[in-house]
């Protein structure tokens, strides 16, 4: 059988695992695909290669897919997201001096308690005109929105009380060491790299801010996705198989070995293994702590592109870009996420398919049965740390209620 070739752009991050494993573990070939992976070092280049046809699909931070479709900062290009590549997996790491002032030894902080101590430091530093500075990977990243959501909710005003700048993850540990930033919110392996170098301590993981926060997605140009529906279907099936395999405990060691290779992450195998098994080393030399849900994959249809997740990201985009909320834009942003394509691709397989395309985000405390058109769906706790819930049909009221 000849395989259809599909090129996928990615950044060397642990959450690029699914397309890499789909290729290396044979899931792509089983669906008649040969995945060619194109490695880059900036989201700008991953995006440009997608838009100019160097790649057919891309591993992408979810807000950037939406920003590209809305034409923020550049001409709009229609984007489809048929599959989410996973939830959370990021952390907030403080420099050693800031950690000494705000973190307790040896344990993961609680968002409110750490936030309160950080607030005191941040306000004092702002008053002394030496504001704290945090680095995030991109303006349109979940890292930026999670960090800002947390800061604002504990009484620290982003851009006013603290500075938030973009840093390139490979330089993040250096920036912490040099005191150019006081904290970073980045994905793995970059927090662990800073910890293992002894230049930072992990303060929180983003799963503590939003238990089920959407992270990377598979983005395609709508033009490409519409022109070859069969290719999209097979790719979604291959990625879904890879996700099911990813959560098999026995597979973790071999997966870490594959991801560590120079062509993919070019990072220490042991660091990657920790991340994909939800074990996080908070400070240099410490015993890794097991943090359930640190990097959430496959279970509870984690890969389903809920339109309500896109709606939440759009709400944060207007909040921090300082642009007015527009229901027309909101509809276009939600339309980037394509639960219909996910269902089409996985119909008739063993996959669980939710009946709804949108849900209340952050409203579940105890596991809850949910309607499905295929399989039995149970959704677990998905709370935001401050207890607020997001109703995509009432985004304006939600935005008005935020600090």
């Amino acid at each position: 059988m000849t395989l259809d070739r599909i090129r996928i752009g990615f950044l060397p991050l642990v959450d690029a695992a699914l397309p890499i494993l789909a290729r290396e573990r044979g899931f792509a070939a089983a669906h008649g695909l040969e995945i060619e992976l194109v490695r880059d070092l900036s989201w700008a280049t991953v995006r440009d290669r997608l838009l100019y046809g160097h790649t057919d699909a891309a591993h992408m931070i979810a807000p950037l897919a939406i920003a590209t479709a809305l034409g923020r900062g550049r001409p709009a290009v229609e984007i489809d997201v048929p599959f989410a590549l996973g939830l959370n997996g990021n952390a907030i790491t403080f420099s050693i001096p800031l950690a000494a002032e705000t973190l307790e030894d040896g344990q993961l902080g609680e968002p409110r308690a750490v936030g309160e101590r950080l607030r005191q430091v941040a306000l004092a530093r702002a008053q002394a005109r030496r504001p704290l500075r945090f680095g995030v990977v991109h303006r349109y990243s979940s890292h930026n929105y999670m960090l800002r959501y947390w800061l604002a909710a504990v009484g620290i005003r982003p851009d006013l009380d603290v500075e938030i700048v973009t840093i390139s993850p490979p330089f993040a540990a250096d920036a912490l060491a040099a005191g150019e930033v006081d904290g970073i919110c980045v994905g793995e392996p970059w927090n662990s790299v800073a910890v293992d170098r002894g230049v930072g301590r992990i303060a929180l993981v983003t799963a503590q801010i939003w238990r089920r926060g959407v992270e990377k997605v598979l983005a395609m140009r709508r033009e490409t996705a519409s022109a070859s529906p069969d290719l999209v279907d097979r790719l979604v099936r291959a990625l879904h198989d890879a996700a099911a395999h990813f959560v098999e405990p026995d597979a973790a060691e071999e997966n870490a070995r594959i991801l560590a290779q120079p062509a993919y992450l070019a990072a220490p195998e042991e660091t990657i293994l920790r991340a994909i098994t939800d074990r996080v080393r908070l400070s240099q030399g410490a015993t890794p702590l097991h943090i359930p849900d640190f990097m959430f994959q496959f279970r509870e249809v984690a890969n389903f592109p809920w339109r309500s997740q896109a709606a939440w990201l759009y709400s944060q985009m207007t909040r921090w870009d300082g642009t007015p909320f527009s229901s027309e834009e909101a509809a276009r942003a939600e339309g980037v996420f394509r639960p219909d394509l996910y269902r089409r691709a996985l119909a008739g397989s063993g996959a669980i398919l939710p009946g709804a395309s949108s849900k209340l985000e952050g409203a579940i405390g105890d596991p809850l049965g949910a309607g499905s058109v295929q399989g039995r769906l149970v959704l677990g706790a998905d709370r935001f740390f401050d207890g607020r819930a997001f109703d995509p049909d009432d985004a304006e009221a939600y935005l008005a209620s935020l600090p």
Partner: protein
Amino acid sequence: MRIAIIDTSTTRAAIISEGLREAGLDDLVLIDNSHALVAQIEAANPEVVLINLENPSRDVLEEYFAVSRALAKPIAMFVDQSNPETTAAAIDAGVSAYIIDGLSKQRIMPIVDLAVRRFNAFSRLQAELHEARNALADRAAIDKAKAILMRRRAIDEPAAYALLRSHAMQSNRRIAEVAEAIITSAALMGDDT
């Protein structure tokens, strides 16, 4: 017109600078890509920024442009107002260009075209260099394999080469590959030539 060049390859940066100077554009600033990028750009205050696609600092640069849009002198990405073919050619060549808003297209096009040509020339140069290096390595491997055959089989050099060549033809492999195999097996057999 001041042009800033940010490139992870200092050789390529030099090649582009040279091309721009030849075209009479000599107000150039080379920016060190790893350290305090934004401060360097602010100090240089360029009207055009050229950066290679593989540069990890592109997101930092775009963030700076996004912020500067709100300020007095906004910089926009070139694609925003250029024709798509030029941008596609630039992306294909591996370069991305940003310009100050309002700079005329006639002034920009020659710069981007030149950058594209120089980037392409650099890629060809690298490919040639790579080939030359491989050829050298092949030569060395073949010489070593010949020495092994001459000693083991007590034959002269032309005979050793003929043996390598005929085996390569029979097995449909390159002579250098056969040579590599001989060296590897000799090493495994404890023959340390």
